[in-house]
C-alpha cells in the first residue's frame, strides 16, 4: 500500500528535480583535461542541439566505471561498432527509424534524401563533422577509380543507378535517385552500417589527390603496404577499428593498436547524445575487451570476469551461469533471439542429382518432411521447453506474425506425411521399411551441417528418429562451414542444416529480400539466388518462386507502408504454404551475463544482429553503474 502511494510521488519529485536547464555536471574522467585546457568544457563539446535518445523505462545515471567483455578473436572488436550503434539514422527499440548523428532527414517522393547534420558536432579528435566528410567519401572514395574500381557500394545504388550527390551547405547534403530507394536509410541503420562519410581531415594525408607523392610513398613504406590504396584502406577501416588514430563518432573509441590480447575503448569526449538532463553520454568511461578462447568464455563469465556478455554464451550454459550468480556478482538475463529459426533444414531445390531435384521441388515432399518432425520433443529434450515449436517464419513478437505461418505444415503428423509420400508414388519399401526412390535406391537423405556445435547434432538425431516413421532415413554429416557452402552451391548437398530467416522480427518497411531468391547463400535455392546476384545461370521456373521475385521487386516500388505490409504477408504466406525451409525450433533464448550494478540493460529484449545490432538499439551509451568505483 505504501509502495503504491509512494511511487507516483517519487516520479513527480524526480521530474521536478531534473529541469532541462540544470547545470551540467562535468565528467570526472575528463576533469583534469578540462581544467588544464586540453579539452573544452562539456557544453562546447556537444553539438548545438545534441541527440536525445528516449529514456522511457530507463533511469538517468552517473558517470564512471568500466565494462569488461570477452571475445574470442581480435577481429571481434568490430562489434563495438554494432554495440555503440552511433548511426546517421538508427532504429530505436521499437524498430522505428530515428535520426541519430543527423539532426533530421528530409525525404521527397522516397527518392530525394536531404541529410541535415548537427551544427557544432565534432569527430572524436575535436574536428568539426561537416558536409566535407560526405563529399570526401563520395567524390574521393566511392567514385574514385583507384579506391573503388567497381564503383560505389551496392547499397548506394537504386536499380543499378548511382545517386546524384550535392553539397548544399556546411551542414546539408543531398542524395537523389530517379526512382524510390527504400534500401538507403536501412543500410545506414544496419549493424554493419554503410559509411557514407569519412574523417576527411585525417584521411586526406593518405590520399594521392591530397598528399605529395614523396610523403605518400614514405607512409606506404612505413605501413608495409604495396600501394597507396592498401595504405588508405588499412588506415580508414571505420568498421574494423584496427587503427586507433582514426577519428570516430562512436561512444567509445579504440585506443589499442592490434595485435593485442586486450583492447581498451575510451569514451569519446565529443559524443553527440545526451540524457534527459542534458548530461553527455556515455555514462561508462571505458569498455575493455579481453580475448579468451571461445570454449573458456562461459567459464570465465561464470566466475565474474565480465560485466556484460552474450556472445559465445549458449542456452546450455544457463544452469552453470545461474549457479555462479552470487559469487560472480552478476545476474543472468534471458533474451529472445531474433532469427526465424534456431535450426532449419534446407532442401536443396538446385540439387545436382535430377531425381532428388525433382523430389525437392515437389511441395508434397517438403510438406511431408516437415510434418514428420516432432518439434515439441526437440523443444522439451534439448531446450528445457523454453523454445518455440514452430516453422521457419517471423517470430510472434514481430508485427507481421500470424499464427497460420507458424503452424502451417508443422504439426507432428506422421500419418498425413505418409499419405503425402504415398501420393507422390514412393510406395515401395526395402526390408528396413525405408522407402525406395524411383530408381530403386533407398531414400537416404544426407543432411550436411557446418558441424559447429553439438546442439545441431542433438536436434538432428531426434529428427532422424521421427523421419524413420515415414520411411525416410537421415544421415548427418558435419563438415566445415566453407565446405558446406561449396557443396550446397554446387548442388552436391541435397539437404543442409543452417539457421532460419536471418531477421525474424522485421517490420514492413524492412526489405523482404531474405524471403526471395536474392542471394547465393540461401541454401534452398543457391543457383536462383546466384542468378539474381550476378545474372549468371538460370532463374526458377516454379511459379511460387517467381512470384516471390516479383513481390520483392514490387516492395522496392511500394508507395506506402500498407502496401509493403501486404507484400510481406503474401511472401510469408507463400513460404508457410510451400515449406521452402523446414524450421525445427525457434525462439531459443540467449543467456546474457550482466553485472548486478549495471543499470538500464533491459531484462527482456531481443538479441539479434539485424535489426538490433545486439545491444546497439538499446542505447549502450545509456548503461551505467549504480555505484561506480
Amino acid at each position, binding site marked *: 500500500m505504501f509502495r503504491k502511494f509512494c511511487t507516483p510521488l517519487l516520479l513527480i519529485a524526480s521530474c521536478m528535480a531534473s529541469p532541462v536547464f540544470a547545470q551540467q555536471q562535468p565528467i570526472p574522467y575528463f576533469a583534469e583535461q578540462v581544467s588544464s585546457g586540453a579539452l573544452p568544457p562539456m557544453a562546447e563539446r556537444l553539438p548545438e542541439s545534441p541527440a536525445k535518445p528516449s529514456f522511457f523505462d530507463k533511469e538517468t545515471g552517473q558517470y564512471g566505471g568500466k565494462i*569488461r567483455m570477452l571475445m574470442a*578473436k*581480435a*577481429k571481434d572488436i568490430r562489434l563495438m561498432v554494432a554495440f555503440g550503434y552511433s548511426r546517421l539514422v538508427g532504429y530505436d527499440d521499437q524498430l522505428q527509424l530515428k535520426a541519430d548523428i543527423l539532426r533530421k532527414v528530409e525525404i521527397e517522393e522516397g527518392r530525394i534524401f536531404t541529410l541535415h547534420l548537427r551544427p557544432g558536432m565534432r569527430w572524436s579528435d575535436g574536428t568539426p563533422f561537416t558536409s566535407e566528410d560526405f563529399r570526401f567519401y563520395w567524390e574521393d572514395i566511392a567514385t574514385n577509380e583507384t579506391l573503388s*574500381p*567497381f564503383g560505389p*557500394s*551496392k547499397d548506394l545504388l537504386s536499380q543499378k543507378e548511382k545517386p546524384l550527390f550535392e553539397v548544399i551547405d556546411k551542414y546539408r547534403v543531398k542524395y537523389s535517385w530517379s526512382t524510390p530507394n527504400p534500401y538507403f536509410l536501412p543500410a545506414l541503420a544496419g*549493424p*554493419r552500417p554503410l559509411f557514407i562519410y569519412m574523417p576527411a581531415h585525417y584521411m586526406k594525408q593518405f590520399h594521392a589527390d591530397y598528399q605529395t607523392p614523396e610523403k605518400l610513398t614514405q607512409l606506404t613504406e612505413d605501413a*608495409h603496404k604495396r600501394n597507396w*590504396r*592498401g595504405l588508405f584502406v*588499412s588506415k580508414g*577501416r571505420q568498421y*574494423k577499428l*584496427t587503427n586507433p588514430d582514426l577519428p570516430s563518432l562512436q561512444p567509445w573509441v579504440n585506443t*589499442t593498436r*592490434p*595485435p*593485442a*590480447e*586486450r583492447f*581498451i575503448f575510451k569514451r569519446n569526449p565529443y559524443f553527440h547524445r545526451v540524457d534527459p538532463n542534458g548530461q553527455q553520454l556515455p555514462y561508462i568511461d571505458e569498455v*575493455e575487451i*579481453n*580475448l*579468451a*578462447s571461445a*570454449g*573458456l568464455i562461459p*567459464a*570465465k563469465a561464470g*566466475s565474474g*570476469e565480465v560485466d556484460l556478455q552474450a556472445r559465445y554464451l549458449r542456452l546450455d550454459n544457463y544452469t552453470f551461469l545461474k549457479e555462479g550468480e552470487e559469487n560472480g556478482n552478476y545476474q543472468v538475463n534471458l533474451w529472445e533471439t531474433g*532469427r526465424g529459426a534456431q535450426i532449419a533444414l534446407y532442401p536443396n531445390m538446385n540439387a545436382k542429382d535430377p531425381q532428388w531435384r525433382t523430389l525437392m521441388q515437389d511441395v508434397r515432399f517438403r510438406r511431408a518432411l516437415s510434418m514428420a518432425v516432432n518439434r515439441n520433443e526437440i523443444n522439451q529434450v534439448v531446450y528445457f521447453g523454453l523454445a518455440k515449436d514452430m516453422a521457419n517464419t517471423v517470430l510472434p513478437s514481430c508485427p507481421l506474425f500470424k499464427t497460420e505461418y507458424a503452424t502451417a505444415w508443422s504439426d507432428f503428423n506422421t500419418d498425413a506425411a505418409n499419405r503425402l509420400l504415398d501420393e507422390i508414388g514412393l510406395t515401395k519399401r526395402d526390408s528396413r521399411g525405408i522407402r525406395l526412390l524411383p530408381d530403386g535406391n533407398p531414400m537416404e537423405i544426407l543432411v550436411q551441417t*557446418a558441424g*559447429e556445435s553439438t546442439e545441431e547434432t542433438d536436434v538432428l538425431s531426434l529428427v532422424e528418429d521421427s523421419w524413420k516413421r515415414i520411411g525416410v532415413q537421415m544421415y548427418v554429416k558435419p563438415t*566445415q*562451414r*566453407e*565446405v*558446406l*557452402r*561449396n557443396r550446397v552451391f554446387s548442388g552436391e548437398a541435397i539437404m543442409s542444416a543452417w539457421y532460419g530467416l*536471418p531477421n525474424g522480427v522485421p517490420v514492413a518497411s524492412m526489405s523482404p529480400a531474405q524471403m526471395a531468391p536474392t*542471394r*547465393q*547463400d540461401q541454401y534452398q535455392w543457391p543457383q536462383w539466388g546466384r542468378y539474381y*546476384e*550476378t545474372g549468371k545461370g538460370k532463374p526458377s521456373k516454379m511459379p511460387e518462386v517467381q512470384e516471390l521475385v516479383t513481390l520483392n521487386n514490387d516492395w522496392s516500388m511500394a508507395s506506402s507502408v500498407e502496401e509493403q505490409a501486404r507484400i510481406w504477408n503474401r511472401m510469408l504466406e507463400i513460404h508457410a504454404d510451400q515449406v521452402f525451409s523446414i524450421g525445427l525450433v525457434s525462439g531459443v533464448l540467449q543467456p546474457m551475463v550482466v553485472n548486478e550494478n549495471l543499470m538500464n540493460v533491459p531484462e527482456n529484449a531481443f538479441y*539479434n*544482429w*539485424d535489426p538490433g545490432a545486439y545491444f546497439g538499439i538499446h542505447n549502450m551509451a545509456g548503461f551505467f553503474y549504480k555505484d561506480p568505483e
Partner: protein
Amino acid sequence: MLKYLLKRVLVMIPTLIVISALVFIIIQLPPGDYLESHIAELESQGESIDPQKIEFLRHEYGLDKPLWEQYLVWISGFVQGDLGYSFEYNLPVAEVIGDKMWLTIIVSFFTILVTWLIAFPIGMYSATHPYSWSDYSLTLVGFLGLATPNFLLALVMLYLANRYFGTSIGGLMDPEFMDQDWSWAKVKSVLEHLWIPVLVIGTSGTAGMIRRLRANLMDELRKPYVVTGRAKGLGETRLLIKYPLRLSMNFFIADIGSLLPSIISGAEVVAVVLSLPTTGPILLAALQSQDMYLAGSFLMFLAALTVVGVLISDILLAMLDPRIRLQGGVQR
C-alpha cells in the same frame, strides 16, 4: 669434422626448399581460400559482404594467381626476411607472431625443466631398483600423466585454481597486466598462472622419458665395465653418474632435434584450452581460416628449427659418444 659440418649445412638448403613446397601445398589442400572461409564466418553471424568486393580483395591479395606464382611470391619474400602478410590480422606475419614468442618460450622452457626434474630422478631410481614395488608405483605416476587427456586435466586444474586460489581463468596473467610493462606484480601474476600449463604439458611428457631412461640405463648397468668399476671400489652414485648414465643419454641428446621446435610451438591443444597467449593457438586458427602466409611462415619456421635441432643433436652425439661415426657407408 669441419667438412662434415659444411656438408650437413649444405644439405639443409634443399631440405628446406622441399619442406616449403610441401607446406604450401598442404595448406592449400582444403577447398577454398582465406576469403571464402572469411565470408562463411561472417555469414554464420548474419553479416554479409558484397561479392564484388570479394573479387576485388582476391585480386588485391593475389589469391587469383596460380598456385605456383603465389608460392614463388611467398618463398622469395621469405628469403629476404619478409614472412608475408596475415589476412586474418591485416598485419605482417612478423608483427602478429612477434610478442607472443617470448611468452611461448617462457612456458616451454619451464615445461621442459619440469619434465626433466620429474623424469630424471624417477628414471634413475626405477632403473637402479627395477621390478620393485617403488619402481612400479613411480612409473604408474608417469603413466597416469601420459594417459590423462591433457585438455581435461587443464580444465579441472583451471577450475580448482579459480575455486581455491581465485586465479583468473585461462591466460598467462591477470587481464589488467596484459598491456603493461613488466613489473614485479606482473611477474607474480605470470607465475601464478604458469604452473597450470607447465604441469599439464609436463606430466604428459614424463612417462616416455622415464621409460626410455630406465630401459637404456638398465642395459648399461649390466655391462662388464660397470661390474669392473664396482669391483675397483667406485661408490655407487659416482659409478652410476660417471659412466652408465652418460651413455644412456644418447636418446636424450637425439631428442634435441624435436626439442627446439617444441619450444616455439608448445602444446597447441593445451594452449587453446587454457587460452594462453602463445603461438600455438595462432597457428591453429591460421590453419583453420586458411590464412596461408601466416600458417606457412610459421610451419617453415618450425621446420627450420627442426633441421637446425637435428644438426645440433648430431654434433652433440658425436662429442658425447665416440662410437658414433660421422661418415656413413659400409666398413669391413
